[in-house]
Structure formats: structure tokens, C-alpha cells
């Protein structure tokens, strides 16, 4: 097969790690606390836009801008959580869908601030191209140089990026895997199963749900910013609602309610997502490459349906547990 070079695999690996972080945010909200968030992309988008705007317009250093991006994601979580978390779960589901779309439409229609449909590169108006990821690239170069210095072999910027996102993903997974099995995680799971029962034994349900929503927003926001830094230029369409469902697909593919299934789901997903080139065999070779790119989205949808129907527990999940009635 042509094009199976290291560059492609690095690209797929970076995508997989960023998507795994994205899915982990949803995992904390949905799998741990049972909060149905259908607008995860909203947290990703607001954090990315806040970061890019602060870098481009106020020339803030990147780490500070990223911190502000996370704070904006937290603010959005509070905005959604304070009115909705006291109500039934359905209300949060609706509010999050709406939030995802509102963020995108705001980004489309506030061109002076966001660059409008043209995206981040038009943030300073039509006359000059705006960059927000110079700091990121400089850091990647430093890391690459560092690795080259230690190992004696030159490494690419992408390899440095892959290493960084992999380490971030791993740290987050370890951190939350430990917490999931701590008493804190037990309370969240109890709330997921039956929040009245949890309240009846003395657990402050709304406070825990708020924690889960905020943590998910922070992780989601981080993944959104990493995605933005990695793709270099983004527009509102990069934060389309489908992104949220990719996160669900990753959770479902790997295995619902299993934190260590997230990387597996993310690898499977990103191979499918980035690997249009794998779809060049007959009879798909009858289509031109543009059509095959759309076919890829169709296959992702088909896979979601097949998994739900045939293997709802995913690759690693526990079917016995899943099939118990609530």
C-alpha cells in the first residue's frame, strides 16, 4: 500500500491521543456521573477560540492563553450546570446540544472577534493572516531538539507533538483511573445509577454533578485547544456537532464505562478517521478519493449502529453489567 510512511502514523497517533483526551472529558461526565452531554464540542470550541483570540489580539503568551481557555470552558460549564443540574438529566442534554450550536453560530457571526466563517486566520481582519500557534511550534522545536540531543537522532516536529499529547493523555488517564476507583468515583457512579438513592444516603448530588461537568469541560477544552494547535488554522466548522458524536463513538468502540478502553477506542477511531487511504481496495476503488472521504463518515455511522446492535459493551466492556436493569 502506498503512503504508509511514518508521517502518516504520527499524524494518526496525534489525532488518536487528542481524541482520547476529548473522549476522557466525556467519560468523566457521561460514564462516571451519567450526565448526558451532547454538546461536548462547545467546551472544545470556546476554549480554542478564547486561546486563539487572546494570543492573536492581546499577544498573550500561549500557556497563559491556554489557562484562560480552560477558565472559559469552566465558565460555560457553570452557565449550563447551574440552571440544568437540579433538573432531570434530559434538560442538560438539550441545553448542551443548544450550547454546541450557539457557540458555532456565534463564531460564524462575530467575524470581528473570531474571524467568522473564514476562521482563525481572519481574526485580524482580511488584510493580514493571524497565527496563534507560533508558541506551540517553538515549543515543539525545543522538545524535538532536546530529544535529538539526548538520543542523537534528529526527530520531526510531529514526533515531538505526538510525544507531548501522548504524555498528556497518559497522565490524565492515570489520574482519573485512580480517582474512578476512589470513594469519589464510587459516589459519582452511584449518582449515575440513581441520584435519589445517592442523596438518600447523604451525598450532595448536585455538587458532584457540577464537579463532573466542570472536570469534563476542562478536559474537553484542553483537547479542543490541542486540536487547534495541531491543525494550525481552525474555523467554526472544525467544531461541528459531529465531533461530540466521535467522542461517544470512541467510548462505545472501546467499551462503555471502562477508562482504559478509551485509548483503544481512540486508536480504532482515528485509524478509520484519518485512514481514508486504507479504503482504496475494490470495490471502493471505483469511487474517486473525494467520495471515499465521505464514505468514511458513512462507515463511521455504520460502525456505531453495528456496535450498538451487536456489541453494546464495546471491545473491552462487560456485557453482563451493561445488561442489568437500572
Amino acid at each position: 500500500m502506498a503512503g504508509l510512511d511514518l508521517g502518516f502514523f504520527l499524524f494518526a497517533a496525534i489525532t488518536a491521543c487528542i481524541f482520547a483526551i476529548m473522549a476522557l472529558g466525556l467519560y468523566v461526565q457521561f460514564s462516571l456521573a451519567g450526565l448526558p452531554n451532547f454538546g461536548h464540542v462547545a467546551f472544545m470550541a470556546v476554549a480554542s477560540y478564547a486561546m486563539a483570540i487572546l494570543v492573536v489580539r492581546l499577544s498573550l503568551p500561549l500557556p497563559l492563553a491556554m489557562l484562560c481557555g480552560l477558565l472559559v470552558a469552566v465558565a460555560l460549564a457553570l452557565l449550563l450546570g447551574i440552571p440544568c443540574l437540579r433538573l432531570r438529566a434530559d434538560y442538560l442534554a438539550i441545553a448542551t446540544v443548544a450550547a454546541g450550536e450557539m457557540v458555532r453560530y456565534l463564531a460564524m457571526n462575530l467575524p470581528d472577534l473570531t474571524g467568522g466563517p473564514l476562521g482563525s486566520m481572519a481574526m485580524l481582519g482580511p488584510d493580514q493572516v493571524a497565527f496563534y500557534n507560533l508558541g506551540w511550534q517553538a515549543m515543539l522545536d525545543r522538545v524535538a531538539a532536546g530529544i535529538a540531543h539526548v538520543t542523537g537522532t534528529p526527530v520531526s516536529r510531529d514526533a515531538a507533538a505526538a510525544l507531548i499529547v501522548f504524555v498528556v493523555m497518559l497522565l490524565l488517564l492515570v489520574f482519573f483511573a485512580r480517582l474512578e476507583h476512589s470513594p469519589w468515583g464510587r459516589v459519582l457512579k452511584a449518582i449515575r445509577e440513581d441520584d435519589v438513592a445517592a442523596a438518600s444516603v447523604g451525598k450532595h448530588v448536585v455538587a458532584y454533578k457540577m464537579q463532573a461537568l466542570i472536570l469534563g469541560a476542562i478536559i474537553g477544552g484542553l483537547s479542543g485547544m490541542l486540536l487547534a494547535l495541531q491543525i494550525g488554522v481552525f474555523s467554526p466548522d472544525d467544531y461541528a456537532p459531529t465531533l461530540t458524536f466521535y467522542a461517544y463513538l470512541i467510548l462505545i468502540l472501546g467499551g462503555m464505562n471502562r477508562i482504559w478502553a478509551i485509548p483503544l477506542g481512540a486508536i480504532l477511531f482515528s485509524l478509520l478517521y484519518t485512514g481514508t487511504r486504507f479504503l482504496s481496495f475494490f470495490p471502493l476503488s471505483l469511487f474517486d478519493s473525494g467520495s471515499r472521504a465521505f464514505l468514511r463518515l458513512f462507515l463511521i455511522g455504520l460502525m456505531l449502529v453495528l456496535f450498538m446492535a451487536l456489541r453494546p459493551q464495546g471491545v473491552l466492556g462487560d456485557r453482563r453489567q451493561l445488561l442489568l436493569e437500572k
Partner: protein
Amino acid sequence: MLLEVVDLSKTFGGIAAVSHASFGVAERSITALIGPNGAGKTTMFNLLTGLIRADSGMIRFAGRSIERLRTDLVARAGLVRVFQSPRILTRMTVRENMMLAAKDQPGERFGMAWMAPARVARREAEIRAQAENLLGLLRLSHLAEAFAGTLSGGQRKLLELGRTLMVEPRMILLDEPMAGVAPVLAEQLLEHVKMLRAQRGITVCIIEHDLDLIMSVSDHVVVMDEGTVIASGSPAEVQADGRVIEAYIGRLDAAVVADAS
């Protein structure tokens, strides 16, 4: 009185589910709450535990007003309820169900498992021992690792009772604990309830339809009908009360007459 209900009212869309109800539950008593279907007994439990808010009236528990408290704070104050149909956490194990309910686990705060692992582990070991002990008492030890969703109806009731005890309550509210339970298990449940009072000094308020059973186990009976308390006293007093007979039997007579015509 450990629990005092004063002039409590709650209407749902014009229908008075509880209306100006007043009664008390003495410390270490087993008090029965009886009355025909729709009398407002379960609504009363929902009001007591803060699941719904009263329109007016007062609830005092251990000298403290609790009518405005959230459910979890009522539970922490020591007033815990067992639901009519058990609300166990089916997709968690029996042991997890029990351990969840324990108080004062610092590890329930976010991040504490990382910041103070030793403290969390120490308390966790205590909680685990406490859970094993109670599971042994309830004869559920062999099921500790099973998902709670695999338990039978009666075992679920036992588990919920056990989970309630993990909160270390001063008073428990039992909503029809014997309903739908095999006679042998019902007997066992009843023994547990008596033992709770005798050994742990726990006050019990129990909703039950089996009047013979109630009269034998309780030392005080509160009778509700149409949202109000129509009588209260010792089992013997209540059984002799004309209004109680009317509420139970009179209605029945009327129904028989209506059926016949």
C-alpha cells in the same frame, strides 16, 4: 420526641396530599404509620426526607428544624429512609452499595485519593469492615461481590436496609418493608428491625398494611386518612378508635354497598 411533625401540609395541583398533619415519634420507639391507600403516608416520608418541600408546617428532628433541608443533609442529620421499591444500585456490587453509604470518607472529596492516600485507605478499611459486618448480619456475605442487580426482591430489601444502616442513622423510615417479600424473609426483616432498636437504639417509623403484624411489633401507631392524622396512640387504643374503624372498614362497607347496587 425525636421527630415532631407540626401542622404539615402539601398540595399537588389543588389536591391536598398531606393537610395539617401533626404527630410525634418518641426516641427508641417503633412507630407505625398506617392508613388506607392514598392517605398520604409515602408523601409524608417524602416530606420528612426533603425529597419534596412542604407548603407549610414544621418538621423537627433531634431538636432541629429540617423542613428546609436537602435530602442528603437530612440523611446526614441521622434520618434515613428505605424506599417502598428498593432503590439499590444494580450495576454496582453489593459491597459497593454498602460502602457508598458510609459517612466521613475524606476520599469522597475530589482529588483526595491523590493528596491523602493513606487517610483515605485507612477510612476505607474501616468502612469495609463495617460493611462486611452488616452483610454478615443480614446473611448477604456470600453475595458481596455480585452485582446488586442480580439479587432477588427480598435480598434487595435486605441490602437497602443494610445500606441505610451504613449511614449510622438515629432513625430510619421503612416504607412497606414487608410488601412482596416471602414470609420467611419478612420474618427475618422484622427480627432485624426489632434488633436495631434493641442493640443500636435506632428509632423506627414504619409504613405497613399488614395490621396484625403492625399491632404486634409497634409500640405507637399513627393513623392517617386523606392527608391528615386522624388518630394516634398505643396499638390497643387505635384498634378501639371509632374513626380508625371507619376509615378502614366504613369505606369498605360503602364500597360493598356500591358494588352491590
